[in-house]
C-alpha cells in the first residue's frame, strides 16, 4: 500500500518557544491528486509546509518522498528533490524577463556564457504548452498577477517537480484567472503531478480538490476524500466544534433608537477580495463581522476607515454620503480603527504608554504645535484607571506591557478621541483569557455610551457573546445576517456553509 503515496509525512512534531506548532501530525499525498490542506490561522498548515520545503527543521518524525526517507535543509534541496512551492505573494523577480524568471538558477550555458536564445525558446515552449500567451522577453512586472502566477507554475514545471505546494495561489486572482489556474492544475494532475492546495475559499476547495486534510491547533483532525465531506463538516472541523453542540449564550438585545444609521455601506467592492458587501450600524450597536479568513473582513474594515480609497460602492455617515481619501477623513468624522496587527500597525514600541495613547489626539491637545502636557497626562491618567491598564506608570515603554494591556492602550488611544464608531479587528487575538474578558466588558461599556462598534473576530463565541447583530460574509459577499434569537455559533457556521443546506439540507 505504501507505494501508493508520493509523499508521506509521519508523526511530524515541532515546538516553538511556548507553542506546540505541530503535534505528531501525519500527512500523505498521492501522485496525481490535488490535496487540500485546511485549517484556520495557527492550525499549523504553513509550519508543516515549511518543514516539507526545508525552511524549518522538524523536531521529530520522518518524511518519505517516493519511497525514500528525505530531510531538506533549504528550499533548493527540496526543489532538487522535485518539490516546488508557489507562494501567495508571488516570489519572482519583477524586473527580470519572464524567461529568465523561469530559468533563474538553472540557466542553460554555452561557451560564451548564458545561452539567452535557449532560455527564451524553452520558456516560450513551456508557456505555449500551458496555453499562456506572453512575450517571454518582457519584464515580469509588465504583466498582471495571473500571468505572474502562471510563470511561477511554469518555473515549477520546468524544474520537473513531482509535487507542487500552492499556498493560497488564488488570493490575488479574479474569478476568470482562477479558472485559468484551475485548468492548469487539472493538466498537472493528468501528468501525475501531485498538488498540495492551501486556500481559505471553501468553494474552490470543493471544486478542484480530491482529498482534504484538516489541521487544528497543530493536530491532524481528519483526512478524507473531498466528495465525502460536506461544507458544514469542513467548517466545523476547522473551527473545532461540533456543529450541533453549540449553545446560544447571553446576548443583549439592541435597544437603541432606530434613527439614521451611523454608518451605512452599500455594495463595497475593491480590487481584490470584496465583491459588493453591504452593512449598516446604528448608534450604540455592536455589529459583528463573521467569515472565514480571506472572506474580506479586514479589507472591508479598511475601506470603511478610508485606508483603501480604491473601491466602488457607497458609504454614508448619519445618512450623508461620504467618500474617503485617507484615514484622516474618516477620523475627522469620528471613526476609529484598532487594527488586527497590533505590532505592525498599532503600537510605537519604543515610545511610552503616554505617547502611544495620545498619538492620535495630539492635534486637539496642542496649541501652536506645543502639546499641553498637563491635559495629556490627565487624559492618560483617566484611561489607565478606567480601563484598568496594568503599567508601572505613564512613562513605561509600551513594549514592556503584556499584549492585553497594549491592546487597552490602543483602545484608549481611540476612545479618548470620543469616536462615533470604533472598528475592532481581532481585539482579543494573542492575549490571555483574563484580559480577554476585560476587553469584552469594555466593548459592552463603549456601546453603552452610545458609541457604535464593528467587531471583527475569528472566534465565533466572542461574536455571539458580544454582538447585537452579526453579518456573515464569504468570498467578499454578504451571505447572511443573524440577530437576537437566531444568533448562535451553530447558525453562523451553518450560514458560512449555507449552499449545502440550500441544496437539500442533507448534512448533520
Amino acid at each position: 500500500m505504501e507505494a501508493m503515496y508520493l509523499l508521506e509525512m509521519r508523526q511530524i512534531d515541532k515546538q516553538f518557544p511556548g507553542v506546540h506548532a505541530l503535534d505528531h501530525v501525519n500527512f500523505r499525498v498521492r501522485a496525481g491528486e490535488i490535496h487540500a490542506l485546511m485549517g484556520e490561522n495557527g492550525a499549523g498548515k504553513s509550519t508543516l509546509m515549511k518543514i516539507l520545503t526545508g525552511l524549518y527543521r522538524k523536531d521529530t518524525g520522518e518524511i518519505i518522498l517516493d519511497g525514500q526517507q528525505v530531510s531538506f535543509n533549504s528550499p533548493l534541496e527540496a526543489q532538487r528533490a522535485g518539490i516546488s512551492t508557489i507562494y501567495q505573494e508571488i516570489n519572482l523577480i519583477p524586473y527580470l524577463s519572464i524567461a529568465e524568471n523561469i530559468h533563474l538558477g538553472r540557466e542553460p550555458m554555452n561557451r560564451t556564457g548564458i545561452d539567452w536564445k535557449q532560455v527564451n525558446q524553452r520558456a516560450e515552449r513551456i508557456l505555449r504548452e500551458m496555453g499562456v500567451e506572453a512575450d517571454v522577453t518582457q519584464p515580469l512586472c509588465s504583466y498582471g498577477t495571473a500571468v505572474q502566477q502562471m510563470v511561477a507554475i511554469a518555473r515549477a514545471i520546468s524544474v520537473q517537480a513531482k509535487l507542487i505546494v500552492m499556498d493560497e495561489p488564488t488570493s490575488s486572482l479574479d474569478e476568470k484567472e482562477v479558472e485559468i489556474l484551475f485548468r492548469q492544475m487539472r493538466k498537472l494532475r493528468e501528468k501525475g503531478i501531485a498538488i498540495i492546495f492551501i486556500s481559505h475559499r471553501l468553494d474552490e476547495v470543493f471544486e478542484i480538490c480530491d482529498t482534504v486534510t484538516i489541521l487544528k491547533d497543530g493536530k491532524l483532525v481528519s483526512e478524507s476524500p473531498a466528495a465525502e465531506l460536506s461544507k458544514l463538516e469542513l467548517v466545523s472541523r476547522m473551527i473545532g466544534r461540533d456543529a450541533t453542540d453549540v449553545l446560544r449564550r447571553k446576548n443583549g438585545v439592541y435597544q437603541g433608537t432606530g434613527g439614521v444609521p451611523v454608518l451605512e455601506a452599500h455594495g463595497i467592492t475593491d480590487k481584490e477580495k470584496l465583491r459588493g458587501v453591504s452593512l449598516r450600524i446604528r448608534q450604540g450597536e455592536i455589529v459583528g463581522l463573521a467569515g472565514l479568513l480571506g472572506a474580506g473582513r479586514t479589507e472591508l474594515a479598511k475601506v470603511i476607515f478610508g485606508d483603501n480609497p480604491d473601491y466602488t460602492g457607497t458609504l454614508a455617515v448619519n445618512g450623508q454620503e461620504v467618500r474617503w481619501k485617507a484615514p484622516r477623513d474618516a477620523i475627522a468624522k469620528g471613526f476609529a480603527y484598532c487594527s488586527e496587527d497590533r505590532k505592525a500597525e498599532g503600537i510605537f514600541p519604543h515610545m511610552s504608554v503616554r505617547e502611544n495613547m495620545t498619538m492620535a489626539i495630539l492635534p486637539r491637545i496642542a496649541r501652536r504645535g506645543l502639546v499641553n502636557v498637563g491635559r495629556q497626562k490627565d487624559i492618560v491618567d483617566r484611561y489607565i484607571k478606567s480601563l484598568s491598564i496594568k503599567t508601572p506608570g505613564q512613562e513605561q515603554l509600551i513594549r514592556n506591557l503584556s499584549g492585553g494591556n497594549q491592546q487597552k492602550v490602543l483602545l484608549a488611544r481611540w476612545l479618548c478621541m470620543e469616536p462615533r464608531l470604533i472598528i475592532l479587528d481581532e481585539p482579543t487575538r494573542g492575549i490571555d483569557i483574563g484580559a480577554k474578558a476585560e476587553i469584552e466588558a469594555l466593548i459592552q461599556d463603549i456601546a453603552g455610551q452610545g458609541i457604535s462598534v464593528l467587531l471583527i473576530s475569528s472566534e465565533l463565541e466572542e461574536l455571539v457573546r458580544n454582538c447585537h447583530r452579526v453579518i456573515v460574509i464569504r468570498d467578499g459577499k454578504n451571505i447572511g445576517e443573524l440577530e437576537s434569537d437566531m444568533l448562535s455559533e451553530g447558525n453562523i457556521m451553518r450560514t458560512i456553509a449555507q449552499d449545502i443546506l440550500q441544496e437539500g439540507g442533507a448534512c448533520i
Partner: protein
Amino acid sequence: MKKKNLFYAFCKKHGVVFALLALILAAALLFPEFASYGNVTNILNQNSMIGIISLGMTFVILTGGIDLSVGSLAALSSVLAAVLSPKGSLAIMILVPLAVCTAMGLLSGLIIAKLQIAPFIATLGMMMAARGIALVMTDGGVSVSVDTGVAETFRLFARSYLLRVPAPVWLFVLLLVTGLYIARRTRSGRYVYAVGGNEEAARMMGLQPEKIKIAVYTVNGLLAGLAGLILASRLGAGQPVTCDGWEMTAIAATAIGGTLLSGGRGGLGGTAIGVFIIGVISNMINLQGSLSSWWQSIITGLLLLFVVMLQSHARANGTGSTEIAG
C-alpha cells in the same frame, strides 16, 4: 499600439544617450575648443577614475545596496602607494593598496551580508575609518610625494598612451566591457539583478544573496583602490584629503544612468553615460570661465532630481496589460 510602445520604450531606454548627445552638441556649438583633441582627452581622462568607481557602484546599487566608502578608499589607496614608494618596488606599490582596499570592501560586504547591518551605516563606518587611516599615515593630511626612484615609471601608469588615448581611459573601457559581459552573460551577474529585484524570492529560488552581496562590495573596494592608484600616478603623490565626494558623484552617475536606487533594474551602459553627462557639464562650466565651479553641483543635483522623478513616475505606471489565452 505596439509600435507606439516600442517607440516609447526606446526613448525611455535611450533617453540618457540623447541627453548626452545633446549636451555634447551644445558644448561643441558654444565652445569651439570643446571638440579639440586636448579637451576631449582631458574629459575622458578625468572621468575615467569616477567611471571605474561608478561601475562597481552600479553593481552595489543593483543589489539594492549603497557604498559610501569608495572615495575614502581611493584616497587611502593613493596614500598607500606613495608611502610604500621608497621601497622601490612597483609591484608592492600597486598590489598592497589594491589588496587593502579589496579587503576593506570584503569587510563591508561581510558586515552587510552576515550581520545584516544596513549598507548605508556599514559603509559610512568604512568611509570614516579609511579616511582616518589615510590621515594617520600622513601626519594629518600632508600630501606625500612618490619617491623619485620610482616616480617616472609609476607616472607611466596614468600617462602612457595607446592610439593617442590615455591608459586610464583604456582601463575604464576594458572594465566596462568586462562588467557588461558579467552583467549580461554570467549567472553571477544575473543574480545581482535577482537579489536586488526581490531578495526573498531569490533565496526561495535557491540563490545565495549573501554571497552576491559580499562579492559586489569586494569588487567595489578593488575598483576604488584602482582609481586611487590612477590618481596617485597622475599627481605623483598620495593625498589623504582628495576624492572627497567621489562616492556621491558615482551614485549620481548611476542614478542618472537609469539604475533604480532600490535595486534590480538598470545597468553599466547607462552608468557610463551618466558619468560623461556629469563630466561634460563640468567641462562646459570650466570652458565658460565666468561661472563658479560650484554650479556643477547645482546643475548635476537638479538633473539627478529630475531623473529620479522620472523613474518613480515610470514605476507608478509600471504594470501593463495582461494578455492571456486559454
